[in-house]
């Protein structure tokens, strides 16, 4: 409802209070479309993070009902916040993986400088549970003579 006040000068305050029915349907439709789109983007981020789990903020819910315009706006804003958080987590993870990949390249180029270093496949963003590690060739003899090499372990231990 809008209220329009017109001051017409000394001693006379005329107040118009026209009752306006505001049609919220277009705004609600737009918000619902935005929410659907944001949920799709959030779903894509969650799938991209797999097998890691994204910790998303909990959005309070109180049973299925038609939401008010304010509720829809709050939900839209919460989803934007969740999406930003998810993308930051993914970007941080990608940075860690890039660093791990760079370290692996250094390990492969010069194993002796990276003795006993281990990098798991998961740290590289690669499937499986193998581990790249710098080990001495021929056991103790290699350790004494400085013969180091990078070895990829054969994978997950067998289930017992």
């Amino acid at each position, binding site marked *: 409802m809008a209220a329009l006040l017109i001051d017409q000068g000394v001693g006379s305050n005329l107040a118009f209070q026209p009752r306006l029915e505001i049609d919220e349907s277009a705004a609600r439709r737009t918000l*619902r479309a935005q929410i*659907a789109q944001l*949920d799709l983007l959030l779903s894509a981020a969650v799938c991209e993070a797999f*097998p890691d789990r994204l910790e998303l903020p909990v*959005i*309070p819910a109180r*049973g*299925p*009902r038609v*939401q008010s315009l304010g509720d829809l706006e709050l939900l839209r804003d919460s989803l934007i916040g969740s999406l930003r958080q998810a993308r930051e987590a993914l970007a941080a993870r990608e940075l860690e993986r890039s660093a791990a990949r760079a370290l692996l390249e250094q390990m492969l180029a010069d194993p002796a400088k990276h003795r006993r270093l281990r990098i798991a496949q998961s740290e590289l963003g690669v499937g499986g549970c193998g581990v790249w590690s710098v080990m001495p060739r021929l056991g103790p003899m290699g350790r004494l003579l400085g013969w180091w090499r990078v070895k990829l372990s054969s994978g997950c231990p067998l289930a017992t």
Partner: protein
Amino acid sequence: MSGELAAEFPGLRAGWISCQCSDPRCDPGVGERLALLASRFNGRQALELRQQQVPAAYRSFFRQVGLDPEQQPTPIEQAVLGRLLSGGNLPQDRISDGLLLALLETSVPVVAFEAGAVAPPITIRGAEHGELVTDAELEPGALILADGQRPLCQLFSAPEPPLAAAAESESLLLVAVVVPGVSEIASDEALTIAAAAISGG
């Protein structure tokens, strides 16, 4: 469906079909189909399901009515999560198996009511002040499934006895809640699959 709700969610509707269940024991054929469907999902596929058209429509609708699908998963996501946790789609009884089969095949949830306890047409509407479902008062405005006489259950909640179909029920009314973005074909298919699996057709 009420006019206000229809304007808010064009395409939201309830579909229903009657069917008979003459034998409450599990149908081996349905059990085989459920076992085959169980092999369709691993962890990644279960997660990626949310990006497919029909599951995404239910997720969006959950969000739009104030439910958080991360806290209260949509029916199809709940079913797939159950399959991952239990290691398979374990047969329960003919009615439960039929409903699960329809859900896994189409992603459209179907619930079963005791046919004698409900009076179609089934509608989706907001609860009014003082309305009860199995002695529990509904919050005004909560979205519910209702027949011509009374509320049946809250939307996306399992119906409770005596309205809900029991394993030994013979005459059933199957109801699918169809949200905007889900085609009529998908909902018809869900109801048909469930009815055929339950009645043994």
